[in-house]
């Protein structure tokens, strides 16, 4: 009888070992689930990469925009100088054409 009792006791211990392991496993999974949710939530909420990307790209756009404007400024300046140089000749061309003679 005592031997059977011992075995029953051992069975109970075994059940407890398994139950403890199951509880530990469940706790581990629960904690891991929380951690996983947090990782996803952080990814959803963390805009630092995006902010940096926006900042970098906007800076790039400003530089490109300034370059374009600078090129056109140079072109405008060059054209203005050419126009200044040819101004008198163009006026003479108009007057001569209107008068029908060469002045």
């Amino acid at each position, binding site marked *: 009888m005592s*031997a059977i009792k*011992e*075995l029953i006791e*051992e069975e109970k*211990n*075994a059940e407890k*070992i*398994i139950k*403890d*392991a*199951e509880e*530990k*496993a469940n706790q*581990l*999974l629960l904690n*891991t689930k929380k*951690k*996983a*949710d947090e*990782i*996803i939530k*952080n*990814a*959803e909420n963390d*805009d630092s*990469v*995006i902010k940096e*990307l*926006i900042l970098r*790209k*906007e800076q*790039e*756009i400003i530089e*490109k*925009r300034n370059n*374009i*404007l600078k*090129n*056109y*400024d140079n*072109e*405008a300046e060059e*054209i*203005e100088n*050419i*126009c200044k140089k*040819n*101004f008198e*000749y*163009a*006026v003479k*061309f*108009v*007057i001569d*054409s*209107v*008068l*029908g*003679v060469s*002045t």
Partner: protein
Amino acid sequence: MSIEALRLEIRKAAEEEAKRILEDAEQKAKNMLNEAEQKAKNIIEKKIQETMRKLEEKEKVELAIARIDGKKKVLDIKSKYLENVLKEAENRLNKLPLENPELYKNVLSDFIIEGIKNLEGTKFVIKITPRDQSIINEVINIVKSKLKKNIEITVSSEFLNASGGVIVYTEDMRLYYINTFESRLMKFKSENRGKILDILLKSS
């Protein structure tokens, strides 16, 4: 089998089962974290792609606007000089009859001849500016000598409101040819803006 052996067997089986349960849970946890990290990576990647798409759109728009602004600036310079040339030409034409009367007499005679050639008949009426009254007889003589044909030109008692030039009418006043500085300049402007610009922009 002894009781002790049985007990050990039961314990060993329980411990193995417990180990398996924990190992299984650890594997599941590891997979769960891997999946979460992959999902987080995908979320960030998607956000980056979406942001890049918007930024590239913004870039296209901003650079297009910059190009339009730049082209407008260049165009404005060209337009400014074109208008200045025409304005300066107009100013100088206004002063020409006083500053270069000999040239003006020739020009006026040519304007009258051009009018006559564009009308029919031998008798014409001309309308001139009040300032040109003093030179018109001389100019008519130049016209007659240049045309080398018998024509009659009468000066209208009505004056022309122009900086220079003439309107030539047929005798019955039904047909006329406007040949003033203003009309010629207007015609020239509408037909020759491209030519003036070509001259202004000639680089050598």
